[in-house]
């Protein structure tokens, strides 16, 4: 017998919260990007669980959503990494606390 989807959903919610916690507390930009990735993947886990437990058998719609969204998430993280490289070139650091020149 399989576990109820609610268990998985609560677990995914936990991963989502860990992602938010990472964004709120970590100062390294790379860790911030990892936090975003955690949040996106928590949502993907939800889609997979609900797709696998749908009434009419496994729902290909959910899996298509996950594949498309993974591509979009990869693009976001790629742009983020590109910006991290440029931040490092300009500021010489990965520390988010140093990136405060704009706040006047």
């Amino acid at each position, binding site marked *: 017998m399989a576990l109820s989807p609610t268990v998985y*959903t609560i677990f995914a919610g936990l991963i989502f919260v860990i992602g938010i916690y990472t964004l709120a507390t970590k100062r390294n930009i790379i860790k911030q990007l990892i936090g*975003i990735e955690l*949040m996106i993947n928590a949502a993907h886990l939800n889609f997979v669980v609900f797709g696998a437990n749908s009434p009419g058998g496994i729902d290909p719609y959910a899996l298509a959503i996950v594949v498309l969204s993974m591509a979009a998430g990869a693009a976001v993280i790629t742009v983020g990494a590109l910006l991290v490289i440029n931040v490092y070139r300009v500021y010489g650091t990965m520390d988010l606390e140093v990136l405060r020149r*704009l706040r006047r």
Partner: protein
Amino acid sequence: MAELVPGIMSIPILTLLLGAVLVSPILMILARFLKAPKIVGVYATLVLAYALWQSLTARPGTLTARFSQAPGSIIMADDLTYYFTSIILGIGLLSAVYSLGYIKNRSAEFYTLLLVMVLGMVGVFFSGDFVTFFIFWEIMSISSYLLVAFNYREWESVEASLKYLIMSSTGSAAILFGLSLLYGLSGTLEFGELSSVLASQSARFELWNIAALVLIIGGLGVNIAMSPFHYWLPDAHPAAPSPISAMLSGVVIKTGVFAMIRVFTLLYPAEMYGWSAGLMALALLTMTIGNVMAVFQSDIKRLLAFSSIANIGYIALALSINTPLALAGALLHVLNHAIAKALLFLSAGCIIEASGTRNLDELSGIGRRMPLSAATYSIGAFSLAGIPGLNSFVSEYAIILAAFSAGQFLPGAIMLVNVIIGAMYHLRVVQVLFLKPETGKSSVSHEARPVMLAPLLVLAALCVLIGVYASPFLSIVFQLASVPK
């Protein structure tokens, strides 16, 4: 309900933009090879002009199209879609014309990214399910990050773009998580089917459903810079090149407004879910913070960015009142703020380019050297200050009237005070530009080139036109607002 069509040929605008975006990288490489980067600029301008013509002449009714019987991407076009699409394409076209004179380096890459951003926004308006919506939303966001970081060797652009990316993609992740919960509840993400599922009484008190609503609205709130999440906007919008600031402040945040209108009117009716009070509190907080912070700014573009936050507050207040008059006021304010804010950012771009500074103290008296740019700036500033006879007066008046006639006296009064604060800082800038003595930087400035002045004059003429002859625009928005849901 949804008719089966063999391709997306039924939506000529979307087909045109998709094709244009696919061709543009090839053209970009060709332009680089021929050392003639202007080709891409002219190409993008022509594509946007043709798409705008298509959008203005489209007589849609409501069209829902899908590509196969299996669940998949759905294209939905109604009057609201074409209203927003026309605004986006109009501002996009004028920004593209302006950029022909403004962008000097890497203009081929610039126009490619601009076309991708416009495609993302137009796609959001045409999407009939949340998956299509989310994919186009990400296309729009990713190209915005890249355009904010267009001058990638300057500390300001890089820092602003990274902050924008972190905030905005967190919002996108929240939307995606909310969508996954919605999918788990209803087994679909199509707007039509979702609305019938969510309208049932059993869905109303479902905890996961409330969580999904909060996550989706929170994610959209990050994009439109609602109050707790507004910190990225005054960093990101001024750091971009001026035509992109105009696009971001004028129309990209309006995409979030569109999504909110769709979510609120189509999926979560206010009578059942009771979100009005919460949204109203956030809207009042947003407009107050935006206006009060704008008063203290000495950077002209940062001031305009805070003013955008305040105007988002006005629109959100109108959405929370949720009567036909308020919705009409919100839709008209979307148009008016897009025109006025694009005008302000573009003419500020002329002034900044000529003088080489963004500091208001150093810009004083520049109106005598650059009469046209400063005069068009003043028209935009007077408009957002709520001077009667210009466009924003009409919509701000409509929103305040809607608040009073719905019995919301305190929110209406707070908005009235906010409009007065807005008048204060907008008029201060005009006073600085025209009446203060000249400084070293402003006395050597010259008027901008004609290709940059032409969009300013068009936008200023639109400000005056909507202000003095508002009735056709009012009839359009009232028709949009009174559509039975």
